[in-house]
């Protein structure tokens, strides 16, 4: 896999505040890396340094083999960037704005017009192309921001919260777009929305207090959840204490937690030792006792729970 973004020991301080503290990472073609982290964790600052807007206090960034400080123009040429909030010149129309960005990106003549038309089709901007950007809805403005990032078809894309503030349909659309582009590009995006990591990322990185806490596939992250491979069981018509005792004896079970119960039904969450699968053993136990099963399911793990457990203690220290 060819490395397209290479970051080594990146550091940024604002006076006494350390915003980014020694971040190193490599992103290759075909990868979609998701930056996760609480607000103020250093995600945007890192992206601003990758794109050359902020000068790092220490460390180095290479984009497509060009050092962003030594050869900024060459590095920026192969880069598309959607800044947070998708800023754009409000008095321009999407079309004139894309022509402007495309021209500065080095496109010209027929190629420029063709790329602008293609990009507007890709992000569905044709209907509003002659309206000024100021008058567009939030969803359309975000699409204009995405369009300017991809108008020159760059190999590296950096998106700062690409779906922030969009409605569920628009979110879905933007994710589809990112997925469609992912194969031959290197993409870094930041998000607070953990489901997004599942939807588009091949790799997820949790950042807190300017440091990388974990780096792995979304499945790796889920495996770190306390809930990973836990079993949810809902039964009816059985004695509470009997069920608890029977579940506690199933091999591989470390804890049994009662969720909610009423006269007819009771729900349990059964935790495995070290995240090993226990669904087989639990279902065997269920059938042996002939309980009336309402629901039986395996939990893959909840990213938000992993996220909280990894980022909260670090926050409490500061």
């Amino acid at each position, binding site marked *: 896999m060819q490395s397209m973004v290479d970051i080594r020991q990146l550091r940024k301080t604002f006076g006494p505040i350390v915003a980014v503290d020694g971040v190193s990472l490599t992103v290759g073609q075909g990868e979609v890396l998701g930056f996760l982290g609480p607000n103020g964790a250093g995600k945007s600052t890192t992206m601003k340094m990758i794109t050359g807007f902020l000068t790092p206090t220490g460390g180095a960034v290479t984009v497509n083999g060009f050092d962003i400080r030594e050869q*900024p123009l060459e590095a*920026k040429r192969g880069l598309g*960037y959607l800044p947070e909030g998708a800023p754009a010149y409000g008095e321009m129309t999407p079309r004139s704005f894309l022509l402007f960005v495309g021209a500065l990106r080095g496109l010209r003549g027929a190629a420029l017009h063709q790329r602008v038309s293609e990009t507007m089709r890709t992000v569905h901007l044709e209907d509003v192309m002659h309206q000024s950007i100021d008058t567009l809805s939030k969803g359309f403005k975000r699409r204009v921001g995405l369009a300017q990032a991809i108008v020159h078809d760059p190999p590296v894309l950096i998106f700062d919260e690409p779906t922030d503030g969009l409605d569920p349909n628009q979110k879905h659309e933007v994710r589809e777009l990112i997925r469609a582009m992912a194969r031959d590009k290197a993409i870094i995006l930041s998000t607070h929305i953990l489901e997004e990591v599942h939807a588009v990322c091949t790799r997820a990185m949790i950042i807190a207090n300017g440091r990388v806490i974990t780096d792995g596939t979304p499945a790796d992250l889920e495996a770190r959840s306390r809930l990973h491979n836990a079993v949810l069981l809902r039964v009816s018509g059985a004695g509470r204490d009997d069920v608890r005792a029977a579940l506690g004896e199933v091999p591989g079970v470390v804890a049994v937690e009662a969720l909610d119960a009423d006269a007819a039904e009771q729900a349990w969450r059964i935790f495995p030792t070290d995240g090993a699968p226990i669904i087989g053993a639990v279902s065997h136990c269920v059938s042996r006792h002939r309980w009336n099963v309402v629901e039986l399911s395996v939990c893959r793990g909840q990213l938000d729970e992993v996220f909280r457990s990894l980022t909260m203690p670090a926050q409490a220290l500061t």
Partner: protein
Amino acid sequence: MPSSLTLESARRIGVIFKRELAGYFATPIAAVFLVIFLMLAGAFTFYLGNFFERDQADLLPFFTFHPWLYLVLIPALAMRLWAEERRGGTIELLFTLPVTPWEAVVGKFLAAWCFTGLALALTFPLWLTVNVLGEPDNGVILAGYLGSLLMAGGFMAIGSCVSAFTKNQVIAFVISVVVGLGFVLSGFPLVLDVFRGWMPHVVLDLISSFSFLTHFHDVSRGVIDLRDLVYFVSLIGVWLFATALILEWKKAE
């Protein structure tokens, strides 16, 4: 390939120039500025300058008031140059595009200056009037226009630099007016008294040589001295250079 590099650079300046200039006309700025500029220029010429009563076929009463007209109107145009980019966040977009700060500064400045040039050119009915009423020396008038345009560039470059400091357009406007006033009056006691007594004479002479009024005075009377031209051109260059430095230094703040 230095030649193709500078060509690329000029192309990017051109792209920014076009966008910026179109921006004036896409908003009410163009209409409001042009109308106010022409009204004030006319009012000053006829009422304060006694254009008719002087009974002379020249545009001196017109040009005399330009420093004061520019002092207020140019900062109003210049204040948005960078402050607006900061406030709207588009500065992040602009400086992550393959453009150098210098190219962006020059492109935006040239657009604003050109727009002022257009406002100035639209005063041509005055020139027609003196030509109908008498036989003016059109060379002198041309020199006056040239000097006025250069002085406008000076005010604009100052405003561009001040605007790069802040995201607040009101602050940019007020400070630009004050700095501009300093340059207009630097040959006068109002400014010189601040420095008199504790600064050596050489410095006082230097400060008074910065006066817009002195440099504009001769040009507006048709005396084109190379030193006056060099003065305005280098003044523009220095302020624009400072603008680029400031943006490079604190673009993200």
